[in-house]
């Protein structure tokens, strides 16, 4: 196992996991992996890490944010309706003006 080979392979592992390696690089990497247990182990650990990140990301998306203050929500809804947007695009007074961020509503 050539050290230089491992170092080059190390730089390609994420692209390999993402299926983004050009064919030539992918073949070179797979040939290297056939004879290099440390690189195989590292690849698997990297795969596990990426999977953990994806699961964490999916879980976090389900976290409910604090509710927007009612007045702010009402203004946002009014501003985001298509007629308001058309008015803005045509250069009329911006309906979003006057919106201000509320104080925190988080309890944490």
């Amino acid at each position, binding site marked *: 196992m050539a050290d230089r080979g491992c*170092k080059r392979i190390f730089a390609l592992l994420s692209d390999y996991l993402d299926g983004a390696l050009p064919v030539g690089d992918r073949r070179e990497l797979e040939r290297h992996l056939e004879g290099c247990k440390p690189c195989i182990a590292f690849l698997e650990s990297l795969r596990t890490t990426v999977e953990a990140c994806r699961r964490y990301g999916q879980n976090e998306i389900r976290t409910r944010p604090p509710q927007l203050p009612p007045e702010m929500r009402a203004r946002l809804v009014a501003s*985001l309706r298509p007629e308001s947007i058309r008015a*803005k695009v045509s250069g009329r007074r911006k309906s979003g003006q006057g919106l201000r961020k509320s104080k925190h509503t988080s309890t944490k």
Partner: protein
Amino acid sequence: MNSQVEQALADLKSGKPEEVGRALETLQGIVFGFGMKVCGTPEDAEDTAQETLIRLARELKGFPNARALSVWLYKVAKTQCLMSRRKSKFAPAQMLTLDALMPEGRGTSAPQIKSWEITPEEITLEKELRSKLEDAILALPKHYRLVLILRDMEQLDTREVAEVMGISEKTTKMRLHRARVFLRNALAGYVQGSRCSKEEHHG
């Protein structure tokens, strides 16, 4: 993620107050979740979500598709996160080099790691591991952290991440790989350390 944004865009276009309200909540949830991961505190995540929605209301021009809306949202949210009051929580800006990240890496030696026996199926992201993952993410320098979160957690593709970050796809891939290896190393220490402790207890 895309299906959520697609639905939100359809709801916005409907013009019905209930559906626009639902779109607002969907987009708020997406940006809040992103803010939680990037900033690490609910206060900053809430700031990020509110500022982003206000900008959306002020600047909304017809988005042609969900992708355009998604990239716009993350761009604005990213900027808000970087401006958050608690930005000192960000790890200091620094370069992560592959040489430094290689296990036992001095640049010339082969990776010397113990075998990582845990499989994706075995990881349940229990509280302790999840907390370790969060700590490791927050320890990443911000430009690496943002790329990792956008790509591996928010599930944007490389081109979208590059667009949000204002960098090339090549730089995006480089940062992503280094961030992943950084996290892998942080979690490897935790998993192996836990196992060593266990073995010592039983030994």
